[in-house]
């Protein structure tokens, strides 16, 4: 089984990470790709590539490295089965593309700022659900 976990923040008790761990425990041999997408500079026109720059600031890069360390530490029993990727682009598009390229069996999405009383979906989660070809597990 191949699982894609798309995250933007790390909390050891966040639902997506818990679920991913549960799957790693229950299904031996599962390969996990942890994807962190940072948004490059926005396009001049909505949904066009005009003016998009795939460059990120040093601060964003450091965030990615920090997240990678935290994730690798969290999933240390499965170091061989896990891969961290930090990509730049439109999050919805990148998540769908990676899911297609890697032919994953399951995509796990979460929300960093969840409102417990009124769960509201973010635009990325909404976009991914509508565009992706793989099963999506939304954990908020």
């Amino acid at each position: 089984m191949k699982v894609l976990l798309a995250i933007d923040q790390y909390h050891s008790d966040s639902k997506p990470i818990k679920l991913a761990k549960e799957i790693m425990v229950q299904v031996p041999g599962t390969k996990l790709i942890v994807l962190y997408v940072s948004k490059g500079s926005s396009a001049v026109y909505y949904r066009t590539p005009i003016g998009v720059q795939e460059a990120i600031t040093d601060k964003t890069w450091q965030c990615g490295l920090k997240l990678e360390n935290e994730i690798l530490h969290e999933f240390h029993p499965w170091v061989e089965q896990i891969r961290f990727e930090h990509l730049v682009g439109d999050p919805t598009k990148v998540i769908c593309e990676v899911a297609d390229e890697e032919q994953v069996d399951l995509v796990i999405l979460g929300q960093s700022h969840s409102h417990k009383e009124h769960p509201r979906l973010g635009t990325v989660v909404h976009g991914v659900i509508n565009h992706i070809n793989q099963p999506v597990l939304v954990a908020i």
Partner: protein
Amino acid sequence: MKNILWAVDGSEGSIKAGKMVGQFLDAFPESNVIALHVKQQPTFIDMGMGVVPLSFNDSLEKKAKQLQVDVEEQFSAYLRRFKFISTNGTPAITICKVAEEENVDLIIIGSHGYGAVDRVILGSVSNSVVHRSHIPTLVVK
């Protein structure tokens, strides 16, 4: 993961979701599955207007029974861990309500159901469940 709720309506999407449920049952030997079928009355009936012909209710009932037979046959190997529930109501709201009542850990739902508009644009029930539910929801394409 102990309780899984599978929203089923007999459509292609829910059958695909059923295959996923099978995989989860294999992977999590302690898990139980609740297959939930929601019989939806026409919208104006919910609002207290109009009269439903008896034959309409009968056909919903008949469909639900047939679905139960099909689903139980599909999961005949797991019957001890399997429960079929059929209720009336608005699908998305009922699914979320039952999921919370039954203390479910995961909702599995097909992305597109039987609704006419749903099939063309996007699954309104799955969309609504994802938006409403506090419980992790797996949308199967």
